[in-house]
């Protein structure tokens, strides 16, 4: 891939972008196209999509942080995943697209005092994003696992729809032939075409500002051993490492005010449902979602290859074990909630990775309980013969009569709770008691350091946040470009 820079002891750039996911890649592309000299530092490797099977253990090894085994401690602990590769989470997520929820954005503007936040502007940016990443519905029929969601919701008269994805499908292709239009296929090539450079396998350990420049101290390599280091000096730094790594880097660099204190996630619980026919699609996810109880509660489908089905059955293996032999007739579904709980991200001196904690509220636990029961009902209505909820002590659910037992036995502390949507660790706005960054992402009290990723979203948006992250990132990048133009109207901002 042109644009990849060799590791060097000392590098310079006008703008350093840390991270290359939904926030970082869009920021880099816009700034490079505006003439800035942009260098992207990505902690993970560059992995071509075609060289790895989606949702496989191999993908987790190559493209996820810690092989996908990351957890926010609490009762229960919540497993989460972070992309750690060029393109970040956009390379490994489901590719399901939701426009920024404008009612939520309006509430953020009011509650967090976000200056200059125009919901119509954000809506227009979403149109741009949809073109850039080719948001579209699947050609032809959805997969059987997706059809189950549609059928179950229709039988219950619950609101549901097909969620479009950022995918390109070949002519005559079907639901599973799409190519994800992730950052390595869209905004990163745009950034390179405009002159941006990128370092991969480069971890930024801390930032040091002298008022005129910011120096990023970096280590090279895959992070498993002692590796040579280097430094990158830039006039401006955009930190876009995601809702866990961004606050950790800021804290290691001495920036702590309202940083990492308000982690928000969409906790999910899951179940496996067995049907009469083969319904399993190992390396794709359903495109239908059920929004009857949104924003509190949503239902969708997960990747369901044989290893993941086994994983979903482990909590009650002694009862559920025989089901694994029918994994081709099974698929995994989840209930995701909008949580009232909050978490912390805390960098610890001399320790490489931050401590992450999350505490569910009482209401969260009750919504998870009712959510799992409703999800089980939905799969039964869609024709499931047996349902296996993922919590210790769960019964096999074979009909409506078993749902009450399931609800009685459920406790969030016994469940495998997980999440993939992490945000809100550096909320933006002028509310100084709550916000870590200003209305356009500049870290309060810091020189020349901006945040431009999911960390900025003041709360969890209740839907897949990627489009909202991209829309905010583009808005903030444009504001930065305008601001710099006013400061240096007659100079060439570009290469020095």
């Amino acid at each position: 891939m042109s644009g990849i820079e060799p590791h060097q002891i000392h590098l310079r750039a006008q703008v350093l972008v840390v991270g290359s996911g939904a926030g970082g890649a869009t920021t880099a592309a816009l700034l490079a196209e505006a003439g800035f000299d942009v260098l992207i530092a990505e902690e993970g490797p560059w992995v071509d999509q075609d060289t790895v099977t989606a949702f496989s253990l191999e993908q987790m090894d190559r493209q996820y942080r810690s092989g996908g085994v990351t957890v926010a401690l609490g009762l229960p602990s919540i497993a989460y995943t972070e992309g750690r590769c060029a393109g970040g989470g956009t390379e490994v997520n489901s590719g399901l697209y939701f426009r920024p929820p404008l009612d939520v954005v309006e509430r953020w503007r009011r509650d967090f005092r976000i200056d200059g936040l125009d919901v119509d502007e954000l809506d227009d940016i979403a149109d741009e994003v949809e073109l850039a990443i080719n948001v579209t519905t699947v050609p032809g029929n959805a997969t059987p696992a997706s059809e189950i969601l549609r059928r179950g919701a229709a039988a219950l008269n619950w609101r549901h729809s097909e969620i479009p994805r950022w995918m390109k499908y070949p002519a005559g292709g079907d639901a599973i032939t799409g190519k994800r239009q992730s950052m390595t296929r869209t905004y990163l090539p745009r950034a390179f075409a405009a002159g941006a450079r990128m370092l991969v396998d480069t971890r930024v350990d801390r930032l040091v500002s002298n008022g005129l420049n910011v120096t990023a101290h970096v280590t090279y390599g895959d992070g498993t051993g002692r590796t040579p280091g280097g430094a990158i000096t830039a006039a401006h730094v955009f930190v876009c490492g995601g809702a866990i790594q961004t606050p950790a880097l800021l804290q290691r660099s001495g920036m702590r005010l309202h940083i990492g204190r308000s982690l928000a996630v969409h906790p999910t619980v899951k179940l496996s449902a067995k049907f009469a026919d083969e319904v399993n699609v190992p390396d794709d996810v359903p495109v239908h979602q059920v929004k009857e109880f949104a924003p509190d509660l949503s239902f969708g489908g997960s990747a369901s290859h044989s290893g993941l089905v086994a994983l979903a059955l482990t909590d009650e293996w002694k009862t559920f074990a025989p089901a694994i032999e029918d994994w081709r007739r099974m698929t995994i579904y989840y209930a995701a909630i909008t949580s009232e709980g909050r978490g912390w991200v805390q960098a610890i001196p001399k320790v490489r990775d931050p401590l992450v904690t999350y505490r569910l509220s009482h209401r969260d636990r009750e919504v998870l309980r009712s959510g799992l029961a409703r999800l089980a009902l939905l799969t039964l209505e869609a024709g499931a013969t047996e349902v296996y909820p993922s919590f210790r002590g769960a019964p096999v659910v074979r009909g409506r009569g078993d749902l009450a037992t399931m609800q009685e036995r459920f406790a969030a502390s016994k469940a495998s709770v997980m999440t993939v949507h992490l945000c809100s660790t550096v909320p933006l706005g002028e509310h100084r008691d709550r916000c870590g960054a200003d209305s356009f992402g500049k870290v309060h009290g810091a020189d020349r350091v901006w945040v431009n990723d999911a960390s900025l979203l003041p709360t969890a948006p209740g839907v897949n946040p990627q489009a909202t992250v991209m829309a905010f990132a583009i808005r903030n990048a444009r504001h930065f470009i305008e601001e710099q133009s006013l400061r240096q109207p007659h100079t060439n901002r570009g290469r020095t």
Partner: protein
Amino acid sequence: MLVMRSVPSAPLVGPFADRLLALDFPALDPARRAQAIEFTIRRVDGLPSVIRFGVTVIAALFRGLLAVPGGDAVVRFLARTPLPLLGEYVRMVRSLGYAYIFETWPDTRADGSCPVTQEDVPA
């Protein structure tokens, strides 16, 4: 944390993972079990620093129990009893092992046995 990184997890996690998977999958081919254990150890080595510290401490406790007379029965009890914290370690080892076994050999039966395939038949 450099200290934690220098503590190899294989001698601590390996014996317990071996015992647990042998218990859960009595018919699993030992060579396959060894591969699953190797995978589990690799993932433990890659855990985030703080989690790895906690896992190493618990793994050392389990390893110690395996080494004393009667320890085997205690570990078997712990593997079946979902205790707070200690139970999370069992859950993690189990999850990693199961995910590897069933992704790598999808036709594995619930007891760990596998249907005979063409590859298994001597020419």
